[in-house]
């Protein structure tokens, strides 16, 4: 006994005595003897230093962006996280707080979350943003369910080119209520939504039409107004999935008729960390018919009872599970609040110019790569003839495999893109390549050079 995290270990006797009992075991007498564990088969306590040694040893097997350039995106992005953003989320008052149930003692968190909602609202062009969902995929799942609640319909349309992971999560979210997820065709050349097909599949049972912009494969969708129109005319909700960084440059969904927006907030001030924590963005139009069906927490502007001061608190809690139980709009309880604070601090730090710079460096880098790689014999990019943000599909057309290509890149200490062969076999040997401001020009040139050598068979 006597762990440094457990202050009262040495006061056991004294405290037990005050309780009038002899042994701590008495406090566990209600556990049937047959179920009592003698001891867990885990190692003895390591010191903090030993734990660091262990982790350093294990983690030395990871290769990381910065040590080598990594050209992966696909729903999780490397962006530079300013030191002060990390500092802010490491402040114990934020880090170690619970959900702000006691609003009077939690104004700091509540204001920061209100700012998150507000900043993201500006970015996407809708007024109502919740205080976070787990990630993009689960936000999409919740959006589908919400579209069902709002419309009373049970079909949901998604584009063909969507991250299979996101698609799978969506499927699982729709499973319970028996909602069907169907695909909308996309033009194999341009990736653009096949409007005729959309018109065909859009029937009276469609609750929502979902597109991603930019798409999972990096290209932008140009027919957003048409899609919005078709969707709304069918009485369905129009839902758009976004990479928020792209919205520094591209028209926000709020300006082309989106009823709801989902997306991945991780690039706003969070490192990838192997995919988590992430930050599910979830927003809707300011229409109480929608707002009342929102999942998750909402922070609202309030005032003190004496009316003297502005304050913030959670609002519309009657939607939530702790009050409405099985009739709640969602089961979500813990969310990703700290990531939302990071996103707020990040957006407030970048400002419009900073965010645009981040986005345009990313775009310029990706386009530079795209152009230079396309010049290499045997490579073809982009696979889709459309405008791209900072990701694009690179195809290998010389008969070799992308797996081999990437392995050889790795030997040159470069991590290539995400191989798409099993996800979208119709694209042939291809991979999804991403670049952002974390790549220097030297990184890009090294990539191009290595790719050139590999394709020449010199590697």
């Amino acid at each position, binding site marked *: 006994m006597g762990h440094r*995290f457990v202050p009262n270990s040495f006061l056991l006797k004294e*405290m037990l005595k005050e309780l009038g009992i002899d042994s701590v075991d008495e406090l*566990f007498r209600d556990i049937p003897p047959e179920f009592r*564990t003698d*001891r*867990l088969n885990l190692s003895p*306590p390591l010191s*903090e230093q030993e734990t660091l040694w262990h982790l350093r040893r*294990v*983690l030395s097997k*990871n290769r990381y962006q910065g040590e080598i350039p990594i050209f992966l995106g696909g*729903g999780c992005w*490397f962006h530079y996280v300013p030191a002060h953003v990390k500092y802010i989320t490491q402040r114990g008052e*934020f*880090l*170690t*707080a*619970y959900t702000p149930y*006691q609003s*009077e003692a939690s*104004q700091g*968190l509540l204001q920061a979350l*209100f700012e998150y909602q*507000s*900043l993201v609202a*500006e*970015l996407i062009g809708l*007024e109502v943003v919740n205080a*976070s969902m787990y*990630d993009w995929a*689960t936000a999409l799942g919740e959006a589908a369910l919400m579209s069902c609640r709002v419309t009373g319909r049970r079909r949901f349309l998604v584009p063909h080119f969507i991250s299979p*992971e996101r698609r799978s999560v969506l499927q*699982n979210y729709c499973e*319970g209520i028996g909602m069907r997820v169907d695909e909308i065709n996309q033009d194999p050349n341009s990736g653009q939504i096949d409007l005729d097909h959309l018109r065909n599949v859009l029937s009276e049972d469609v609750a929502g039409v979902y597109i991603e912009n930019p798409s999972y494969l990096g290209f932008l969708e140009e027919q957003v107004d048409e899609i919005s129109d078709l969707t709304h005319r069918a009485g369905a909700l129009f839902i758009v999935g976004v990479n928020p960084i792209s919205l520094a440059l591209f028209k926000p969904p709020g300006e082309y008729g989106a009823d709801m927006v989902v997306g991945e907030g991780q690039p706003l001030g969070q490192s990838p960390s*192997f*995919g*988590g924590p*992430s930050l599910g963005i979830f927003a809707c139009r*300011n229409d109480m018919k929608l*707002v009342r069906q929102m999942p998750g927490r909402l922070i609202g*502007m*309030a*005032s003190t*009872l*004496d009316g*003297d001061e502005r*304050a913030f608190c959670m*609002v519309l809690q009657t939607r939530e*599970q702790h009050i409405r139980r*099985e009739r709640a709009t969602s*089961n*979500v*309880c*813990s969310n990703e*609040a*700290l990531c939302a604070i990071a996103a707020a601090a990040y957006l407030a*730090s970048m*400002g419009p110019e900073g965010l645009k710079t981040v986005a345009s460096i990313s*775009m310029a880098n990706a386009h530079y790569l795209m152009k230079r790689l396309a010049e290499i014999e045997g490579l073809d990019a982009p696979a889709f003839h459309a405008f791209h943000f900072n990701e694009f599909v690179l195809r290998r057309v010389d008969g070799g495999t992308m797996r081999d290509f990437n392995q050889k890149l790795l030997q040159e200490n470069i991590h290539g893109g995400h191989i798409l062969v099993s996800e979208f076999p119709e694209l042939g040997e291809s991979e999804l390549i991403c670049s952002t401001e974390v790549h220097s*020009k030297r990184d890009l040139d090294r990539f191009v050079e290595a790719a050139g050598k590999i394709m020449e068979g010199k590697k």
Partner: protein
Amino acid sequence: MTYRQAKYPEPLVFELSQSEREGGFFNPEIEEIPEIPPKLRRERLNLPRLSEPEVVRHYVRLSQMNFGIESGLYPLGSCTMKYNPRACEDFSALPQVRDIHPLQDASTVQGALEILYRLERMLAEIGGVKRVCLQPAAGAHGELLGMLLVRAYFKDIGENRTEVVIPDSAHGTNFASAAMAGFRVVVIPSNSTGRVDVEALRAAVSDRTAAFMLTNPNTLGLFEHEIKEIASILHDAGALLYYDGANLNGIMGKTRPGDMGFDIVHFNLHKTFSTPHGGGGPGAGPVGVSEKLEPYLPVPIIQYDEDKDKYWLDYNRPKSIGKIRSFFGNFAVLVKAYAYLLMMGASGLKEATEVAVLNANYLKEKLRRIPGFEVRYDPEAPCKHEFVLSAEPLKRETGVTARDVAKRLLDFGFHAPTYYFPPIVPEALMIEPTETEPKEELDRFVDAMKQIAEEARRDPETLKRAPFSTSVSRIDEVRASRRPILSWKQFVRLRK
């Protein structure tokens, strides 16, 4: 009373903004910036413009107007607000943790996979389960996964079961998760000792029953000692038993859910395993299952090839339900829990549980003796890591409610307990001190509760206006929900 929370008259970032001011800057290297087609181009971006000094100061000030575990006792029942080791924050900030991408080639993330694999083994050992899926981002997410596994299982074995049974004392997420997974929720009442009414359970269970969701210790902090009987009832009916792990801190290392007969077990890493709550998240809610549910677990399963000393991702799981979240879950959170488990070790976990339970019983015995408070259910039985006090006697006598008591506690530099939950206790104050609170802090809490009870008699009107020491006084939450203002954008529009 001398505690006082900091207070800054701090505007919103939008109000701090200047028309021109430089925020983040990067130096572009590639000169050619592609021209975006006009149709796609954004025209206006109304983000605030602040300099870095202003941003830092703003959030430092806000942080001081927030109460965390590092500020003081946070006896929020059901939430296990324990000390979050600072070392875990450092560990999870290593570049080998932060700067790796989930789609990297497995050969380049062997360290990450090893940690996931080892963490899974540790959780399996603690929970007494076969395998654990680390994807869920929170407890409720784990519940949803659990319910989807239940669904997949019965579908696979060809049974059509549509109901999930839940005790009335359960957490709201249980009901909501079951419903989200498409089950009809059947609620059963608690018995007079605050535990599952076994006969009611028996009556409720049928061949329509897919699962029973149970929190053990339950939300009253009481151990469901008839668990063997409960498990039999379910299993005899061919149904499954689901363990809500929010309260694992009351029994960890003393007994294991799997051993008690639970088929599916979720863990709340942000409770039991000390990863910080972050003001509401990120958390992690891994789900463990017994052998028969293993085939349905989400992909990928992390496997270890001993011969090659390599970890690999197993996607070849024909019965898998697919994914419940992108990638591998909240990895950085998982790293913290892993480090916590290493630092606690087998003995430390047991010690944590013992002291958590001791602290709870200590508080319970002291508090229930204060006139005005009582423990409704089985007050003589030891509680586990938490207990529920009822302030009903106080309310009857003075009109002061559990909520008033809770608000007043803020003035003493404590966070308030959870109140009005579970709903089966009137004027409930659900108190969980955890093992990381020193006795001195517990004693001060008892004193505060005594003072408040006295004050309720002496001057209930003042008390009802509490808190006074927080950065703002009592907030009109009802009005805020009536015409909600949810963003600056909306506020500006309304203001016009």
